[in-house]
């Protein structure tokens, strides 16, 4: 474990983090341990975000650092087992509903879910109800997350929940909604299970639904 790398990521020193990762790899450090370090750092950042001590720009930069360290590590672990990866808490199928092309909130929530141990299946933006149904059938998630920024997303959210019901899948998943103009009122309208006001709320809801504190 490299405290130096963890500190660089946590302190938002992007250039240092990448340089330290390069040096570690060049000096023969196990590439997989770098990913563990990143996970550790992201856990700390996630906790700070939850406590209101860091904000969205820090999450975005943390994601960027993870991507860059991952790109350095990847060629060195190809073919190796990545057995170090911890077991996932559960699966979440996530997407921005039909007609809405906003992705920022979606990406941040997905990032926080991943940092907190969930496997996220990202369906992208402007996702038709049928695609959510297909993804739930294929991936069997415990949770479905519907994102939307505008008031135009109210009906597509409702339609997506209805489509899952029509496909006989509604009882197999918990459904959360979130984004700009969403609230508890819209969750009730769409017949979702809950509204999450931010990324941490999505994590808390998902953990509750898979039985993790």
């Amino acid at each position, binding site marked *: 474990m490299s405290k130096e790398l963890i500190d660089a990521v946590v302190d*938002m020193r*992007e250039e240092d983090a990448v340089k330290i990762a390069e040096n570690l790899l060049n000096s023969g450090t196990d590439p997989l341990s770098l990913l563990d370090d990143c996970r550790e750092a992201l856990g700390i950042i996630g906790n700070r975000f939850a406590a209101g001590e*860091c*904000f*969205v*720009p820090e999450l*975005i*930069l943390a994601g*960027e650092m993870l991507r860059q360290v991952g790109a350095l590590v990847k060629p060195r672990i190809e073919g190796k087992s990545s057995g170090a990866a911890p077991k996932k808490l559960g699966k979440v199928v996530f997407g921005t509903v039909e*007609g*809405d*092309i*906003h992705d*920022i909130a979606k*990406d941040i929530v997905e990032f926080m879910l991943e940092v907190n141990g969930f496997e996220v299946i990202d369906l992208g933006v*402007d996702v038709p109800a049928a695609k959510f149904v297909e993804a739930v059938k294929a991936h069997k998630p415990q949770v479905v997350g519907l994102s939307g920024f*505008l*008031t*135009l997303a*109210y*009906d597509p959210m409702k339609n997506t929940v209805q489509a899952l019901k029509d496909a006989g899948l509604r009882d197999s998943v918990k459904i959360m909604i979130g984004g*700009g*103009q*969403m*609230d508890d*009122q*819209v969750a*009730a*309208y769409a017949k979702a299970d809950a509204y999450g006001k*931010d990324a941490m709320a999505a994590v808390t809801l998902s953990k509750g639904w898979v039985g993790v504190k």
Partner: protein
Amino acid sequence: MPKPADFDKLTPSQKLEARLAAWQNHEGIEFANKEKEQEYRFRAQILTDVVKMKKPARVPVLIATGFYPFHYYGCSCRDAMYDYDKLGKAMTKFHTDFLPDAVASPGLYGPGRAFDVLDYKLYHWPGHGVPENTSYQCNEAEYMKPNEYSDFLKDPTDYFLRFYLPRVFGALEPLSALPPFTDLQELPFVGPGMFHFGLPHIQDALKKLLKAGELSLEWITKVGQIETSIITSLGLPKFQGAFSKAPLDVPGDTMRGTKQILLDKFRRPKELLEACDRCAQLMLDMGVRNSMWVGPPTVFFPLHKGADSFMSPADFKKYYWPSLKAVMLGLIKEGLIPFMFVEGSYNQRLDIITDPDIPAGTTIWYFDKTDMKEVKKHLQGWACFSGNFPSSLLKTGTVDQVKAHCEQLLKDLAGDGGYYMVNGAVLDEAVSENLHAFVDMVKAYKA
């Protein structure tokens, strides 16, 4: 009343009074009848009262509209951008039936055919990237590259002409090959600087620009007619005058994009701050230049990247607020009223925005999702405030829920004046009975 000859010599508060009087006295507007003129004056007066933080004769109620009028009328969102006859009919029906206290601009939707000619890439709009009944949405991308801050700072107009506009308008892509206009100096330089305009692909781009200009002129003429007709036949004043933006939102919204602008504070903080300062000059100029003497003396700011969810209070203080405050103070000096639309929430910024350098009674704060009790606590006696009636309730609630929520907000906020009612986010979707209940409830309210 004409603009006073000595306007430039007036103090900021005298300028504001002169502008308010010109707006209230509706220079050049002929009403359908005396009654409509009186209704206009009454509405302009209650709006003026709340801006000055007085108790109005009744609480004004506005409706911030997106594409709702077209759903209500029964045409598509696409029609709002392509069929100006339907645009006019839908906007007229909406205002006639709901009768808010100010006009919702028919100019919000833009000329679709001009966008087609320009091959506008910055947005999806109804029937063009999103379904015909869906509102337009921004296509965020890095239209300004990270290494181009210095080009933008050196000469924003040149940067827009040769870099930015060719990227957001596909039809203008050939203009990226033009040399800067500052090359056109002495006689021997003119030929080498000018021949580019003879090249077929540049000429083609310019022809499309001319066509887009014609289509936009046709559109703005029609929009002006529709708006004037609503004002004169219904006695509704305009309340939103010119437009401006928070300086950081200029690169943040449509040039660098949200993710990139939030990363720029780590990767190139000095250039980001320089860009904010540069954009402050541009945004002040835009706000003043576009303010019409006879129009409302407000300059509307849709605020985006400074919201609670996008940055820490410390970053807001460092990156967002100083340049925005500079634009606001510049407008106030000209007798204009910064009309701040806080999208998302500012629960963590209320201490910062209530800046003692900003004189009391010179700004309007319209909130989307900020806690309104806290707003009142911070802003009462300093500025006019409004907003945060949930758009979700207008679409998914019942009439009783709408009435109850409305009553509670009025009880909590309206008693001391300086407050008007408006829905929090622009309205694309609503149940008409709910919207009627919303407007009627406010009009009937006795403080």
